[in-house]
């Protein structure tokens, strides 16, 4: 399974990189390659040009500023996994990372690459959805910022144009002391999730939920926020009954179906994963259920 022929470019600056994309036909960006290269090996994807971002300055960074965690798009999943900033400020991301593929894929895979590839089962898009992330996109025309809810565009597609490059992801931070939960069900360890739930809760000392975010992966073509469930939880007391009602909102969502799992089963799992992730979050808030 050898890929079709292409020209390889390794620009050193962002200016060079976007310039290349603007000028070349049928060009794709190469980030970690863990999703793109298999598709090229199968010849499902045939490109004339690959623009490798590995040497581009300024795309790997993890900084906390202005109430957000700003992550350069070429930051590897491994770097995120071992980052003290992530662990301290964005524990949901930290926990989700352990479920992504395997050590070998996390060593090379990047956060930008995962978002642009937009696999419905991927964990990082779900984390971005829960955090209401902002995606910074560069081209020869400058840089634009797109809220995550506007970023995805259908099955394995995003609004990133053929001459654009995602350069950073901003995750607005939740208040110190917020709690999180991440649960997914996969056939084997490291497989794509059949359904997963990423949860953020800001819980007051009276166990009242000040704010809730629940994002599901594996259900729709892009991560879904369970708005109904979030509304049910907010301003109420966080207890087993509330969690059960909130999770039940997953029962009626429209779901994908494929050779790995049908829609009914995915919906069923979505409810279970939501309930378990919420329970994890509650436990972290010191609430016994």
């Amino acid at each position, binding site marked *: *399974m*050898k890929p079709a*022929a*292409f020209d390889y470019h390794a620009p050193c600056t962002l200016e060079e990189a976007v310039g290349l994309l603007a000028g070349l036909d049928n060009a794709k960006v190469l980030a970690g390659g863990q999703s793109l*290269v298999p598709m090229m090996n199968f010849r499902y994807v045939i490109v004339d040009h690959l623009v490798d971002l*590995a040497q581009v300055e300024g795309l790997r960074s993890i900084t906390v500023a202005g109430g957000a965690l700003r992550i350069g798009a070429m930051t590897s999943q491994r770097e995120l996994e071992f980052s003290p900033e992530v662990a301290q400020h964005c524990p949901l991301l930290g926990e989700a990372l352990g479920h992504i593929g395997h*050590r070998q894929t996390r060593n*090379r895979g990047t956060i930008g690459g995962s978002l642009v590839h937009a696999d419905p089962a991927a964990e990082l898009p779900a984390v971005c959805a829960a955090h209401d992330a902002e995606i910074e996109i560069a081209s020869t025309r400058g840089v634009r910022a797109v809220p995550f809810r506007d970023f995805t565009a259908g099955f394995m597609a995003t609004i990133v144009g053929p001459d654009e490059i995602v350069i950073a992801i901003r995750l607005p931070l939740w208040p110190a002391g917020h709690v999180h939960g991440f649960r997914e069900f996969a056939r*084997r360890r490291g497989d794509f999730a059949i359904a997963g739930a990423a949860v953020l809760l800001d819980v007051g000392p009276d166990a009242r939920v000040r704010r809730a975010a629940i994002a599901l992966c594996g259900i729709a073509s892009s991560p879904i926020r369970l708005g109904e469930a979030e509304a049910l939880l907010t301003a109420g007391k966080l207890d087993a009954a509330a969690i059960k009602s909130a999770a039940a909102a997953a029962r009626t969502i429209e779901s994908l179906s494929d050779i790995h799992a049908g829609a009914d089963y995915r919906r069923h799992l979505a409810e279970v994963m939501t309930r378990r992730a919420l329970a994890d979050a509650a436990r972290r808030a010191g609430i016994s259920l």
Partner: protein
Amino acid sequence: MSSHTIRLTVNGRSCEGSVEARITLADFLRDGLGLTGTHLGCEHGVCGACTVLVDGHTVRACLMFAAQANGREVTTVEGLAAPSGALNALQQAFHDNHGLQCGFCTPGMLMTLTEFLHDNPDPSEAEVREALTGNLCRCTGYAGIVAAALDAARRLRQEA
């Protein structure tokens, strides 16, 4: 199609080659350098038979183009044993614990465990199994590999 001159270090030796863009690191190691210890089991990044170390970290060599390895340090299974040919502690542990049968997945297993034991010198059995989930074996049922990893960890801790 573009052609690229690459210079990299493989198992401590400087190597140079001229490769078409689409030649993977796995192809370059096997066909360009004649290092056939790195195996192709799937070419889509699941089986792990092609696992090598690039700058000390495990990588699926079938998912990396040789051109991307320019300037990097690559370690393959051929680089594990001593120059005399003596097996290193991990290889010896595989031999002692029947950690291989057909041997096809073995180079990938060894490279994965080389990184893992470096990062986790005192792992539990569960942690070893978790670390191996990115490498498929059809022969052994993993028991001998897990035993070898734990045995090697013990020996390496003693040597340290």
